[in-house]
């Protein structure tokens, strides 16, 4: 089963398993991971599922669509040019069996 590790401020982390085909936002919301909101339900419309992907996983990510690109300019916490992604756009499963992300300090 695909696995996501959410790192929080102050060195705590949450590890969750998710179904293939799910995504990082869903995995967080379904497991009650603090700091991921997902207000639009995964439509790349709200930018409240912002995560910073850890360096070692950057190569495995799907490309950033134009929509995601534009929404990433509007996140509540500052955008990191390399690591910022919308969790709802990171589909888990083939190619992305495991991913580690840092949860930003703010989503709203």
């Amino acid at each position, binding site marked *: 089963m695909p696995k996501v590790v959410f790192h929080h401020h102050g060195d705590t982390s949450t590890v969750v398993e998710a179904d293939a085909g799910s995504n990082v936002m*869903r995995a967080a*919301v*379904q*497991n*009650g991971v603090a700091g991921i909101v*997902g*207000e*639009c*339900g*995964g*439509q*790349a*419309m*709200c*930018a409240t599922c912002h995560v910073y992907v850890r360096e070692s996983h950057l190569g495995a990510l799907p490309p950033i669509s134009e*929509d995601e690109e*534009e*929404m990433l*300019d*509007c996140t509540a916490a500052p955008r990191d040019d390399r690591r910022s992604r919308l969790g709802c756009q990171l589909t888990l499963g083939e190619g992305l069996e495991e991913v580690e992300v840092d949860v930003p300090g703010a989503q709203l």
Partner: protein
Amino acid sequence: MCPAPSSDGHARAGHIGARVVVVGAGHAGVQVADALRTHGHRGCLTIVGDEPVLPYQRPPLSKEHLAPAEGVAALPLRAERHFAEHRITLLTGVTVTALDRRARTVALSDGGDVPYDALVLATGAVNRALTVPGADLTGIHALRTLSDADTLRTALLEAGSVLVVGAGFIGLEFAAAARRHAARVTVLEAAERPLARAVSAETASYLADAHRDAGTDLRCGEAVARFVGDNGRVRGAIGTTGAEYEADLVLVGIGVEPRVELALRAGLDVADGIVVDEHLRTADPAIYAVGDCANHPNSHAGARLRLESVQNASGQARHVASVILGARREYAELPWFWSHQGELRLQIAGVRLPGDDSVVLGDPATGRFSVCCLRGGRLVAVESVNRPADHMAARRLLAAGPVPAPENPHDPAFSLKRFAQELVPAP
């Protein structure tokens, strides 16, 4: 059990120990409870929801939840353990049947009573019913709940021809989803254009063309006169123009009515929703209303409104939590909305009213454009089709206060993002 938090038995609003009851476990109700706990509320907190499932997100129901692919699970609003962890008593499958304002209790369908110091009505809305002959035939559906969506998804797998009554947001989203099932899709709209009250004529006509190009037979100026069926099952409909339409699945999406029964019976003011003031409070200082059921004075529109959107539900919920904890600010969050219809991504910031002027940014023929809605020399709303950067710029701009109409919006070099940066420099 929930002991009275103060010696006089009624905690004042502003008391972090106040007993709070929330009626309705939708977007607004769940967010109220969340925001209360986040901001230090420690008293008893009960959410009563009549749907028999863990609270879930509604927007996907008319979108990816209907996709042909197997096994799309509902997206919960919060994980189940979230409620226990925050000491929120979540009652599902239980209806609040009456309010006793004198005793400050609500009566539950399972026979219990729950006392409150503050009561939040977050009862949402129900679909408006179509009352034409044949409307009770099998195969005629509405879409509001997870159970509706599950039923429709199964029905779509078998449907040959789909008829959608009403070209509102739900009707158009459903039509786009139905097309993916390779069914023939017809949409009937009584008005002369889709989304007549919700978007500008420019955006409406673009959406109408896009749905037609994608294969939907969209007929405006046509309503259903009656449905026809065989052995109790729908077979089609006769339009008010006399035209006949074949259908083995019908979705009726002609708008919603706010759920106001409880408020009405408790003697609270109701006028297209439960009437609340700028603090989202009813005339009873212990009772508030938020979300789809609340009719509130909206500072951005300069008018009373009842909005149906996730933003409105969440924003009002967060606000009411702060009021219960003693804040005195007026509710002033900028309304925004999105709708996802197949490849079309519509986003709206602000409130457009009938009669507003429009200026189109970009070329609709490219499938990416925005419409600026202007009123009295001000920019009041922006509708964006596949241009999220415009939408986010508009949100930042409109949230910051009154915005003068841009001077040169027709200039091909005009950019809403730059306009926003000039007026509201990024922090």
